[in-house]
């Protein structure tokens, strides 16, 4: 499977990668994006099975990127991995078409809970 990991922090992209491995999702093709604009560009030029995206990023936020994908007819499964997990953020994410919102700090168990139905 092909997974797009979007976060402006290289450290966090690495932690997400490590957590995917710890959660048992080995052997997938992982591609990185540094902001929402790159996310949209990459998600529209290739076929991904899942997008894992931060919310607050320069150039284009995660929620703007999700809305841009959906407006263009791109229905790639999309979930947020972000430091804000308030009910309001979760509602906004769901309304935009996100499948889930994993709040930082996360654990491998939290990844498994959300991703098993997609990657399991």
């Amino acid at each position, binding site marked *: 499977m092909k997974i797009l990991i979007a976060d402006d922090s290289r*450290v966090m992209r*690495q932690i997400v990668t490590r957590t995917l491995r710890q959660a048992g999702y080995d052997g997938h093709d992982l591609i990185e994006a540094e902001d929402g604009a790159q996310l949209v560009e990459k998600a529209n030029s290739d076929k991904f099975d899942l997008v894992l995206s931060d919310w607050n990023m320069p150039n284009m936020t995660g929620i703007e990127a999700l809305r841009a994908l959906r407006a263009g007819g791109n229905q790639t499964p999309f979930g947020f991995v972000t*430091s*804000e*997990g*308030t009910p309001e953020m979760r509602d906004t994410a769901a309304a935009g078409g996100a499948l889930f919102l994993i709040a*930082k*700090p996360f654990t491998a168990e939290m990844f498994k809970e959300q991703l098993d139905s997609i990657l399991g």
Partner: protein
Amino acid sequence: MSATMAPTGDDLQQIAEQVWASYLDTDGEKPLIPLPPDKLSKDVVAGVAVRGAWHGLVLVACSATASKEAAAALLGMEADEVSEGDVDDALGELANVIGGNVKSLLPEPCTLGLPEVHNDAENDPWLAGDEICRFEATWMGEPMEVSVLEKPQGGETA
């Protein structure tokens, strides 16, 4: 502060301990000890601005040594292998994660800014504000501090 909601030092401790357990002390060998260090340090100060119904900053400050150790722990490297860019990225992300969690304790609606890292905390206008709460700890023998500063409404948080 005027709002009825305000984070406390205990809130900061709880959030910081969760972050350490998830990312910096995953094997329990590098615990964040909730005891004030012998000497505080602001060699590296990373922060995120919060704007909206509440204005201010959530800050993480530590010594240069602690900042390198934090980057190494987050990246799974040795402290002498991390670059300055790695340190800025790591500390900025720590401030972002802690800031996002603190924001949930503040009046809504607010937005969270992108992290900034400052290396000269003395006389830095960005770091001016009224401290609401603070959590001081010792990590790997080094000082580590999380604090929340409120700025006047309409004040400059950028």
